[in-house]
Each structure stands twice: as C-alpha cells, then as structure tokens.
C-alpha cells in the first residue's frame, strides 16, 4: 500500500506542475488523482505537526480565512485549503502542495475547512488538534438531511478522535454545543448585544435533544443561536470559558472575559455572525498560547474576508449590487432576506437563486423555499422583486403566500430579461441575489442591467 501511496504522490506532484504550466492553479485535481490511486492517501500523507479544523453549517470559509490571516500575521507558515474544496480531495491537494517531492511536509501548521459530511473521511487521518464548530443549522436537504442528522454524524466521527481533538464550540448553539462529550471542549459565549433577530418560521432546532421539551431563549443573536434553555429540563447554554461582553457592533469593539480577566478587542465586522467567528478565533489563539496583547495587535492588522460581501457599482445615483446567496439552503437564504429587510435603502431585488447546474433535469426541491422566510421581504423598503429562472412561478407563489403584494412581483424565466423590469426611479439600490456557486452569473445580470440603462440614456 505504501508503494501505491508513493505512486499517487508522484503523479499528483506531476499534475501540480502540469496545472501550473497550463495556468490551472487552484483546482482539486492533484488531490483527486492521489485519492483515486490511493484511497488511503490522507492516512499516509505527511502532515503538519499542528492541524486546526473548521467545520459547521455557516461561517466555515470566513473563519478559516480569518484564522489563516491571523496566524500568518503572527509569522507562522500556514498550510490551508482556502483556495480549494473542503472535501477529501481538496485537503489532499493542500497536503500535496505542502510536501516536497520526497513527501516531506514543509509546513508545521495547517488550517483546514472541513465539510461536515466528510468528517469520517477526514478526522481519523488528520486527527485535528483543534476543531472549531461554528454552528449546525438547516442545510442541503438532499445531502445533509436535517441538523439532528449532521449532529449525530459529527458526533460519531468525533468519538474516533476523542483523545486528540479539542473542540471549540459556540455555547449559544443548542445543536453544536452538545457535540463531543468525550472530547475536551472549550466553549465560547456572548452577552446580549440587542441583535433583535427576526423569528424564523422553520427554526434549526425547536426541541431539547435530551427531553424533547421546548427550547427557549433569554436572548438570541440570529436564527437558533442565542442564550438558550429547555423549559422542561436542565439543558441550557453551557458556561463559556471565553465570554464576550459589552459587544458594540457599531463602535467596533467587544470585551472578552476569561476567568477574572477582561480584555477589549477590536471587532473586525459589524455583524453578529462575524463577532462570533472572531470570538472563536480569540479562543483558539488563547488555547494556542497567544497573550491577549498579542492577539489585540494581530486583530488590529487583519480584515474579515467575506466571500459574499456585496459588490456594487453606481450609476445615476443608484447602487447596483451583487450579493451571493445560498439558494436551496433555507437558513442562509433567510439570513440574507433578513439583511435585505433591515438594510434600510429602498431597493429592487433580482432573485437568481435557483440551481443552475442541473441541466435539463429540474432536481431542485421546493421544500427549502417554504423553510426560508420570504416573509422577511414583505417590507416597504423592498420596492420590487424580479424573480428569475425556471422556478420563477413557484417562487412567485411562495412570495404571494408570504404576503408580498402581487404588483411588486415580476417573473422572468430567462434572467437576461430581468433588466427590462428593474426600476429606474424611486429606488436607491438594486440587489442581484445570485447562487453562491455561480458568482459570475450574478455579476453578468447586474452588469446587463447597468449597461441596458446606459444604452437607454444614450438613446434618449
């Protein structure tokens, strides 16, 4: 088997060179080749001495990028899969890139984003020293079923690395905070910051995993994340080792309490999601032995790379924005709808959220559409909603059932027709919400709208 491993490594290394020559960097091909030739590639691959994993439904990529940036800022050479996938092949590709031709690992530290469903293929071989679990929420029904299933799946995988992996958990998540009772667990918690989240019609968790009683909250941050308790038993938010207080999202600072000490840190973002991501990072750094003063300095020199941050161009006083959404994922879609409602500008929305890649077979389910809170879009500042794609009639029905007035809804099967329906007056912004896996599609639709208006102005 070792011979097979070395053949796999050699061919994968050769493919890396070939990809560089042909300018196809950033694919998972080398790892995919290696795993195909040697399915136990991860087991035999030389790995960095210290491995940090990041998993969870939402926030994995943001957290992974942030941890890498901070550790690199601290002078560490960090191997990561930030440019590739979070599956076996993506992580194998990263390891291959980190090894010399003889298979010797050049990095001492790795930070890997890890897909939840790949846990059994990753944990036994990578044996992460630390695993941050951001949260567990509603995800793809077809792959991840429901949060309880993913919880059980991860929990079983964690039993394999009970002696090795320290979990860094969000104590305010009623699902993921219950993970890994056999592992060493570090909890992160946060005081109320008046986030005032909307109430989701399909919560990620509604009953206690211990007794089935109703889960209630002292305060919430978003969706099912908040200081929780079961109305019938003692199940509740675990005590946090690192607890954020005086969270000032607008002022950009919070204080982290650890034992009797309190340290103020800059907040890298004004969103509660990223405050929680940053808190997990601080906890990780403390566990790695960094002093608070050093962490403060490091945080003062990094930015959050939000892969979905809106990208805007301005024309005639209107902002035309592209904002990546995760269509077919109810929790993510609801969060974005909530943002669109709370972002006060008067806006048109162009929804390009149906699946694009299914070819001729419409394999998209409708369930996510009814789990997602389209009701949040029933606001005065949402001026018009233009629904694009083959699901437009079904989305229109969903919008009507959500209480959106019919005269605010336009349906177009072809997204290239959206430009004919976008308002030219009475709005401050246009948001094109595109499927996160097809970013170019969103930009194309946005640019078509702007170019169309420019053309109209030239002809007038």
């Amino acid at each position, binding site marked *: 088997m070792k011979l097979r491993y070395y053949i796999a490594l050699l061919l994968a290394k050769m493919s890396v060179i070939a990809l560089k020559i042909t300018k196809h960097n950033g694919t998972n091909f080398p790892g995919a080749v290696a795993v195909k030739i040697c399915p136990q590639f991860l087991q035999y691959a030389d790995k960095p001495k210290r491995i940090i994993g990041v998993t969870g439904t939402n926030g994995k990529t943001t957290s992974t990028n942030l941890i890498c940036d901070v550790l690199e800022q601290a002078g560490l050479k960090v191997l990561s899969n930030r440019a590739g996938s979070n599956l076996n092949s993506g992580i194998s590709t990263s390891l291959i890139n980190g090894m010399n031709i003889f298979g010797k690992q050049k990095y001492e530290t790795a930070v890997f984003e890890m897909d939840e469903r790949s846990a059994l293929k990753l944990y036994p071989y990578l044996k992460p020293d630390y695993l941050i679990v951001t949260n567990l929420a509603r995800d793809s*029904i*077809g*792959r991840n*079923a*429901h949060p*309880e*299933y993913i919880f059980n799946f991860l929990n079983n995988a964690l039993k394999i690395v009970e002696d090795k992996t320290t979990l860094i958990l969000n104590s305010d998540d009623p699902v993921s905070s219950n993970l890994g009772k056999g592992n060493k667990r570090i909890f992160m918690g946060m005081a109320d910051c008046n986030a005032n989240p909307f109430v989701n*019609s*399909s919560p990620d968790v*509604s*009953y206690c995993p211990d007794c*089935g009683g*109703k889960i209630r909250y002292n305060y919430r941050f978003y969706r099912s994340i908040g200081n929780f308790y079961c109305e019938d038993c003692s199940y509740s938010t675990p005590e946090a080792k690192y607890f954020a207080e005086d969270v000032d999202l607008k002022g950009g600072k919070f204080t982290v309490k650890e034992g009797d000490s309190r340290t103020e840190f800059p907040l890298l973002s004004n969103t509660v999601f990223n405050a929680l991501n940053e808190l997990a990072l601080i906890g990780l750094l403390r566990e790695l032995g960094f002093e608070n003063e050093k962490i403060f300095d490091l945080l003062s020199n990094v930015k959050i790379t939000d892969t979905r941050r809106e990208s805007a161009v301005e024309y005639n006083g209107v902002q035309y924005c592209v904002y990546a959404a995760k269509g077919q994922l*109810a929790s993510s879609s609801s969060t974005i709808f909530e943002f669109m409602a709370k972002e006060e500008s008067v806006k048109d929305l162009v929804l390009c959220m149906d699946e694009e890649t*299914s*070819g*001729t*077979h*419409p*394999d998209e*389910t*409708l*369930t996510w559409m*009814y*789990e997602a809170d389209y009701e949040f879009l029933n606001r005065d500042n949402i001026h018009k909603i233009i629904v694009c*794609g*083959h699901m*437009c*009639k*079904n989305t*229109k*029905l969903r919008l*009507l*059932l959500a209480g959106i007035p019919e005269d605010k809804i336009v349906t177009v*099967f*072809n997204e290239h027709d959206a430009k004919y329906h976008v308002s030219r007056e009475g709005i401050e912004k246009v948001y094109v919400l595109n499927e996160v896996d097809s970013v170019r599609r969103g930009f194309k639709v946005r640019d078509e709208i702007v170019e169309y208006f420019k053309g109209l102005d030239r002809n007038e």
Partner: protein
Amino acid sequence: MKRIEFLYPEYCFIFAENYNVDYLKRSSAEIEVIETNHKETPKFVTEDVDMVYIGCLTEKKQEDVASLLMPYKERIIELIEKGTVFLVTGNSIELFGNYIKDKERKIDCLGIFNYYAERYMDVVRHNSLFIGEFDGMEIVGHRSQFSFIYGDDFKPFMNLTKGIGMDKKSTVEGVHVNNFFATYSLGPFLVVNPLFAKYILKLMDIDTPLLFEKEAVEAYEVRLDELKNGIRKEAK
C-alpha cells in the same frame, strides 16, 4: 367549522410541512387547526375531527412518535374506517406499517398496514422526484430519505409514471384507504399539488377556491412540465 388536527407540530415539520395545514386554513375560513403537542392527548382520541395531519420527522423523533401513537392504534383504525381524512407525509408513512428496521434494531410501529421500512443511514441519502396518478390527477412528489418501505399488501395512493415508488423497484407510491392518504413526499405537498389540495377540501365538504389558486395551478403546471420534459428552453 371543520377541524384539522396537526399532530406534534414541534416534531413534525422539519421540511416546512406546516404549510400543508396552513394552506388549507388560509384557503377557507371554515377551517380551524388544532395543534397537539407531544405532551397532550390527541383530540381525535376523544372527539371526532375532520382531518388529521402528520408530517416528516427526524429519525429519533419518528421513534418517539411511534410510541406516542401506539396507545391510539385502535382509535386510528376506527377513524380510518369511518372516513376521517388523514394526510400523512414524509417518513411518517412508516409509522403506519408494522415496524422500522435499523440495522439490528426493530422499532415497532402501529401495524395498521402490512409493510415495513428499512433505514440505510450509512449510505448516501436518496433524493428523487416523481409523478404519480391518482383519480385522474397528476401528483408531483419529492422524496429525500434514508429508508424505503417493503411489502405489497396495501392499496397504493398513486401509480407512478415517473420516478421510483415505495422502494427502488416499486412503481407505486403511498397508501390510500378510504380517506387515509400517506405519501413519502415531503415538504409542502398540498401547496405543490393544488388539485389534490382541492380534493382534500372537498372531502371535508369545503368547496371554495384555494388561496392564490390561479398562481398555484400555474406553478404546478410548470413544475409538472419540467419533470416530464426538462427545464424549458427560455429558462436556460
């Protein structure tokens, strides 16, 4: 008033199944929905209701609900025989068979119909769409599940023209006895199938249009056409 009992909503709407009763309620002012949680005795035990609805569950809660319903087996049989409308969607259909097999474990179910289910939690989740025929209607269904039902000693709800049925070799889907309807299809089944939603209302002697009936039928027709013929060209 017509009364619909929604059983264990805190457990039984993991994929927005609440829209099944919600859609009926919002379509007719004659409908009252009674939500019965797991701590309560179902209303149907002591009173007649016009319809009972139960939706999709996590596997753990499916086992809990099997135990919760077990004492009421005879009453459920009585209501089915009397013609009370039942709508059972998602993996709740398995509760009405003999048992659920999960590796070496056997979870006893109501045993009202002669079939059993088997879970395959370690394999890739099965996802598919289907088209079925019932009473001259075409029904659109979506399944996403870890288990299948085996056995052929029951009256199916639909004959399928597309997709797979109760198990991967079956061409029939669901169970239909008197006014009892059960289907593996999950999510907002009645919203996706407005013609069947109207059929259910008629079974309860309600003859009003559905909420947004025109738009619901249009969405259904597009969906049905896509399932038969693929995504229309102008949408590509």
